[in-house]
């Protein structure tokens, strides 16, 4: 069964909204919206490049994949695209390997985030101290990246302790016991030991023996991957309550003797946890409904960041800072646009942007590029550094906390966007339950 939580204006056809918005991107504002049956290429309204670009944009915005294949041997018209979208929305999800689309039949299995928590390493180190440790000019991290301090794990802290702490806090906050968990889904870009992090969390939290434990990857995109898996497990009916936990301790691997300060100096340590539950099983109170997810991989930027283990120890890091920064901002803005279009929620009405935060300078740039207030981005990285897969989690937790403090009717949607090496990208949205 498919999920369907897309908010749309009363009576508005979401397909038509998407088609019109994508068409507008390809033509100048003076071009009138064409007659539905006109062949856009034959009439010269779009050239063949713009036609393909238009279809790709519709795919991204609607979540319906392989639209172009469906439209082979069809006229290049708005009517054809509209018909293909409507036809695709009728297909049962089981026979469709694509991501869920906007027009899929409405289901009842909405998934809520009912509680959250985040934590940072307890040792707060001024960025100048980190500059010094990495042999960089004092003030470089503050001036170039906008980082004031970094949160480092103490000797007693690691991925497990930080992750368990946040998971326990989230469970307590929602008044759930660990025995109610059906799955623990963990993600970390620094924990590579066995037993895996989810298994260690399973034991530490004393979950039921038949509670599943799963680790998912994706680097800084890990939280979104984990949330999407959790949403699918709940929506499919095999799980009712899931804990998604992120935990990253960079300070033990990205050390001055292993990596350059321009890379290693950006990262801090932290964790986050989210409790997900089927809406109808939620026990009332605060909650945010998870929207659809969109994912992808922009391989053209793959070379901008590569990390591999060296033979005999150490890390081989390829990090093209400027190229990666440009790619990150461009791609996150694209994802926000796609989320905006697919959800039908204008970015101006979003209460918080829980995005990956490479550094404060880039976060400001992203806000500017998106044309939204920087205040809508919880400023986590300024005082903790880049927390890897926990970055988006810490930002989401803060956004949820801000929303919880507001009156229920004043709560606004939250956009979720992140990136990972590859260049993996993903996005989603949350709406108040």
């Amino acid at each position, binding site marked *: 069964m498919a999920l369907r939580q897309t908010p749309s204006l009363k009576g508005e056809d979401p397909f038509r909204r998407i088609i019109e918005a994508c068409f507008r991107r390809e033509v100048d504002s003076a071009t009138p919206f064409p007659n539905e049956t006109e062949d856009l290429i034959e009439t010269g309204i779009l050239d063949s*490049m713009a036609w*393909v*670009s238009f279809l790709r944009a519709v795919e991204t915005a609607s979540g319906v994949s392989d639209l*172009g294949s469906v439209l082979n041997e069809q006229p290049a018209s708005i009517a054809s695209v509209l018909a293909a979208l409507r036809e695709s929305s009728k297909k049962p999800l089981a026979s469709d390997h694509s991501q869920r689309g906007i027009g899929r039949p409405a289901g009842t299995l909405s998934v809520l985030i009912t509680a959250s928590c985040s934590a940072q390493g307890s040792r707060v180190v001024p960025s100048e101290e980190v500059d010094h440790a990495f042999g960089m000019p004092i003030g470089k991290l503050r001036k170039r990246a906008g980082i004031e301090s970094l949160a480092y794990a103490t000797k007693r802290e690691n991925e497990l302790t930080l992750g368990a702490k946040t998971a326990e806090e989230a469970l307590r906050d929602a008044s759930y016991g660990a025995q109610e968990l059906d799955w623990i889904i963990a993600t970390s870009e620094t924990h590579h030991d066995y037993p895996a992090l989810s298994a260690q969390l399973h034991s530490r939290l004393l979950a039921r023996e038949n509670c599943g434990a799963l680790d998912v990857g994706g680097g800084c995109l890990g939280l979104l991957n984990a949330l999407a898996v959790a949403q699918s497990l709940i929506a499919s009916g095999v799980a009712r309550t899931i804990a998604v936990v992120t935990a990253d301790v960079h300070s033990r691997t990205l050390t001055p003797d292993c990596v350059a300060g321009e890379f290693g100096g950006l990262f801090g340590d932290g964790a986050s946890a989210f409790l997900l539950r089927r809406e109808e099983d939620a026990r009332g109170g605060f909650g945010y409904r998870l929207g659809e997810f969109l994912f992808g991989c922009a*391989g*053209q930027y793959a070379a901008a960041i590569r990390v591999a283990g060296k033979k005999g120890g150490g890390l081989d890091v390829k990090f093209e800072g400027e190229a990666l920064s440009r790619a990150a901002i461009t791609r996150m803005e694209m994802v926000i646009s796609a989320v905006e279009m697919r959800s039908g929620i204008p970015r101006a009405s979003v209460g918080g942007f829980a995005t990956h935060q490479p550094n404060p300078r880039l976060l400001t740039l992203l806000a500017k590029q998106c044309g939204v207030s920087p205040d809508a981005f919880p400023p986590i990285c300024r005082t903790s550094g880049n927390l890897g897969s926990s970055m988006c989690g810490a930002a989401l937790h803060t956004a949820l906390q801000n929303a919880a403090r507001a009156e229920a009717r004043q709560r606004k949607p939250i956009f979720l966007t992140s990136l990972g090496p590859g260049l993996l990208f993903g996005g989603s949205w949350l709406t108040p339950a």
Partner: protein
Amino acid sequence: MERMLCTTGFTAKTAEELFGLLRNAAVKQRERQKFQSIRPIPASAHSWNYFPHQRGDILEFSLTPFSGASPHVEDRVSMRDFRKTAAVAEPEVASYLGKAECSDSLRGLFECAIHENRQGSGVYAYPTEARRSICGCHTKNLRLELYGNELRATLVLFSGEVARDLPVVDRDWLDFTDAAENRGANRAARLERFLNSQFQYKIMSCPHYFVRIGLTRPYREACWLMLDTLFPIPKADWLEEF
């Protein structure tokens, strides 16, 4: 008179854009095995309404010595008709192309940054930044796709970088897909099956597999990347297989 190896490309169904290779005379003797691309053009247009010669033909010609405006620096105005003097086989053409402009990375293709279209699909270079408009490359993988009736290519270079949704403008490949689409029922579906299954075997495993990427003329201040040439050239008898 000079001699040129014809390696034609194709930009539209009504007009051909011609490419050729010249032995590079501007370099030292030990580098004489290098080649440079030229794009002969008529005096009043960027392409030819009718061009009777084939890929692999060696043509005698007479061109003006002046290069075209950047990034289409390969443009040279033709001052008289071409005359075929000989021909070389397809593998040899591909091997000559390998000795002309080549790159394994996106930036190296046109010696400038390549940008992705934020709105939809395709990748482009700025005409003020690109230093040339044609370049060869070997790829780790290549996929052709019929998408909304348009043939598109996605490729991954040896650098690991991916370029998606490049319009395929290779004359022989377009003729091949046109011919395929005119055969029997479920034509598009059958062609798709061929591109998804036989293509890898027939194309990627070919010893003279080679790709050339070109830039369109500037349009809205951008030159879009397109797949100008794909070796091997498709064979008519492949049409019998799907």
